């Protein structure tokens, strides 16, 4: 079936669903249906290890009886299961409470234009060719150095999906997307010590992936660089979060300004809109309609039009991340963030990675974070980490088994610099983040 046919078939399912919900007495309803197929091939130590054919369907419906809500989902798209699902959502709605904030997003906010964001670039790939590419990637990693003694393999994954979202405002739209990724994880060994590391890339477009050799070589170099890690004495010192671990700091920010955290009053950034939470030079944005963007979407999970938006400008928090429910709870308007932030970016303060190391002088470069350890109610931050000790602006030796702790409120407001080294995989664009002072726990 072509993607166009598939899309119109899914649209028919959504329209039937909405009709069925109305028929069962629902005042309003919304539904999403998706279908996805893919191929995942892993090569380990030169041999094909797994060939996995993925094929996932999903359908979710939410119905509203007045302001009582019920939801249901199924992975089975055949008629009987679909009818059971609609009936289940309606049954649930008989038992939930009247909730003044419940309901579809406002009709006026529905996306009127749905531009083609160029997200569909299928890769016609058989298992043998996929294995070939993965093998090339792993070979590149294993040939970097004889100390690359073992491997968890290289995996090529390609998938294509189609989805349709619709609601009883009359909004029904959807589109096909693709996603391709190549990853590699290897082990460096010297004596008894083993260190593992990985690298990957992902893209909407097959040709957009880094070359298999670069991914493999990067994985190997990262694993090798960790050998002979030392502990560090407990201290307070400057800390540089390398670009590839910096997106987690943005995720903490976004978690703290999510509508749900705000109306629950469970965030350290409560009532801070319009206030400076970062230094003056900091600008953070999202660009949901970026062509070929890995997190792009012309409308959010409720059909609300998305658009470019500054979340922080001149260091000042511009607003929260709201879906329609949180917006009503707070007496505000949806910001098109049902489903999260899409293609987030923080502007660089201009320095290269090497300049940041020099600016830091003597401190810790963090290249791995472990565990949860982030309390968004208080902003208290404490995580396991590994990285490198830096002196005179130069990397001295790897360090491991340390903790890095502080408070996000103070970290954000004291952010010293963000590098221009933003060439990292994934949908978030950020360089490395330099902080003046954090607590390192060691021996």
């Amino acid at each position: 079936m072509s993607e166009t046919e598939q899309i119109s078939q899914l649209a028919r399912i959504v329209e039937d669903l909405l009709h069925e919900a109305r028929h069962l007495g629902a005042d309003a309803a919304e539904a999403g249906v998706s279908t996805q197929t893919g191929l995942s091939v892993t090569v380990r130590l030169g041999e094909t290890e797994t060939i996995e054919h993925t094929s996932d369907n999903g359908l979710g419906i939410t119905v509203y009886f007045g302001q009582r809500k019920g939801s249901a989902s199924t992975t089975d798209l055949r008629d009987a299961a679909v009818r059971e699902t609609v009936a289940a959502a309606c049954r649930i709605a008989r038992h939930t409470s009247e909730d003044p904030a419940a309901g579809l997003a406002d009709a006026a906010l529905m996306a009127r234009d749905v531009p083609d964001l160029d997200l569909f670039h299928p890769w016609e790939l058989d298992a043998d060719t996929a294995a070939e590419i993965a093998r090339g990637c792993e070979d590149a990693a294993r040939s970097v150095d004889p100390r690359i003694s073992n491997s968890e393999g290289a995996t090529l994954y390609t998938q294509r999906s189609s989805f349709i979202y619709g609601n009883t405002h009359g909004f029904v739209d959807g589109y096909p997307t693709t996603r391709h990724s190549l990853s590699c994880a290897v082990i460096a060994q010297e004596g008894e010590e083993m260190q593992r590391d990985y690298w990957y890339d992902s893209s909407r477009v097959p040709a957009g992936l880094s070359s298999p050799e670069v991914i493999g070589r990067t994985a190997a170099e990262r694993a090798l660089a960790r050998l002979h890690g030392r502990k560090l004495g407990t201290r307070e010192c400057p800390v540089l979060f390398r670009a590839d671990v910096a997106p987690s700091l943005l995720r903490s920010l976004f978690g703290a300004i999510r509508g749900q955290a705000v109306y629950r009053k469970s965030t350290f950034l409560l009532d801070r809109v319009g206030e400076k939470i970062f230094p003056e030079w900091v600008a953070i944005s999202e660009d949901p309609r970026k062509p070929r963007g890995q997190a792009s979407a012309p409308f959010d999970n409720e059909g609300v039009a998305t658009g470019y938006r500054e979340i922080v400008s001149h260091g000042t928090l511009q607003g929260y991340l709201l879906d329609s429910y949180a917006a009503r709870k707070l007496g505000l308007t949806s910001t098109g963030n049902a489903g999260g932030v899409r293609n987030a970016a923080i502007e660089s303060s201009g320095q290269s990675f090497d300049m940041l190391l020099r600016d830091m002088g003597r401190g810790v470069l963090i290249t791995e974070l472990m565990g949860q350890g982030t309390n968004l109610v208080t902003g208290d931050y404490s995580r396991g980490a590994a990285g490198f000790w830096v002196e005179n602006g130069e990397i001295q030796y790897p360090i491991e088994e340390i903790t890095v702790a502080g408070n996000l409120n103070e970290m954000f407001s004291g952010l010293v610099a963000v590098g221009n080294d933003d060439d990292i995989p994934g949908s978030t664009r950020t360089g490395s983040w330099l902080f003046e002072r954090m607590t390192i726990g060691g021996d």
Partner: protein
Amino acid sequence: MTQSTAIARATLLDAPGLSETHLARVMDRLLSRQVDAADIYFQYSRLESWVLEDGIIRDGSHGIEQGAGIRAISGDKTGFAYTDSLALPKLLDAAGAARAIAQAGQHGAQAIADGDTPTALYAPVNPLESLSEAEKLDLLRRADAEARAADPRVRQVIASLVAAHDIILVMDNSGQISGDVRPLVRMNVQVIVEHDGKREQGSAGGGARQGLDFFISEERALGYAREAVRQALVNLDAVAAPAGMLPVVLAPGWPGVLLHEAVGHGLEGDFNRKGTSAFAGRIGEQVASSLCTVVDDGTLPDRRGSLTIDDEGTASQYNVLIENGLLKGYMQDKMNARLMGVAATGNGRRESYAHLPMPRMTNTYMLPGQHKPDEIIASVKNGLYAVNFGGGQVDITSGKFVFSANEAYLIEDGKVTRPVKGATLIGNGPDVMTQVSMVGDDLELDSGVGTCGKEGQSVPVGVGQPTLKIDQLTVGGTAA
């Protein structure tokens, strides 16, 4: 045939109109001369959840998940495909895709027979129907009222109730068919408290392989509400946690997540077969202090991590991983057991039909020792007493692991004193277990809340331990 297998056959074979002849055809399609092992895994799941927030039942949802996963193994190579349809043509297509891992060949069909029939560890109930809707919602409302009545500083209560009814059937290439009916319930209460403009959170819950009446008996739901409030209030008064190496005393029960991270994952068969675990090739060696005996036990009745049979049809077991500090064995699924020349241990688990099985933990705990908990705390001059934890994570290759305390206290001169803010603890699995210097006589298991993630797959697990003293562990506070 057990009652569970009978229910599984009726749901997953009879209902979609599949006969044993059909199964034999699918298996035939899957097998070739180069295929060492193969299985067909059928699953039917129904899930229901309810959420209370701001004093009202805000949300409810119902989920259907069903399908079949088909796997062919040749040496250490695996071919896998799955379908959400239980119709014969779809199963044959999936079998054709999965067998592509091996070259084409011939193989005779096997006689189909029921597999091992261990005693069921939990009743084959449907927890979605174990209470009326009114009773389910009443549980949430009573938990909400209990939390709000516990203290005037409670500002927000979010309570959730989840019931899952999972029916599985697995047939392997020897023709053995095994089925299981797996109820699973989970309740959680989260509160936000506020005092003098300062806010904190607390959360508590539990679960079991039973009906939802589990939360009514012993007033468990109300207990979770009180516990969540207590935790949040303790944290309101918390001072900055220390940073650096300290003696750490871990409370019994859920802090057993230490064992799960520090040694559990590193003892899973796949990592050891591949030589990527810090514990690889160390059977018989001293990997923990002689006070430590650690087991993985899938056979505890009604517990969240328990399984009557694993997802490959192997009966779960009581497996000794570490005995008096010596490494005894790994946790195995069928493939890794065969490749390592040992027996499967009943640890072959998968998140669903759409995922490949691999060696996973069930209920992992340390056996009790000799010391009274009070003696253990009294033995510490300056240290940390960690009572409750969030999640953890491990790098099985380097052995580094973390787990995050969300309720902890200072120990000063042998006494538990001020509460400290949440802090991450970090260590090296093989080293940290040699630092265990006292083991309490108070073994407890967690309340049934654990979910373990590995390679993107989540499965329910249990953990437990007695009070433990670790002589030196790095604590990640801000008070240097």
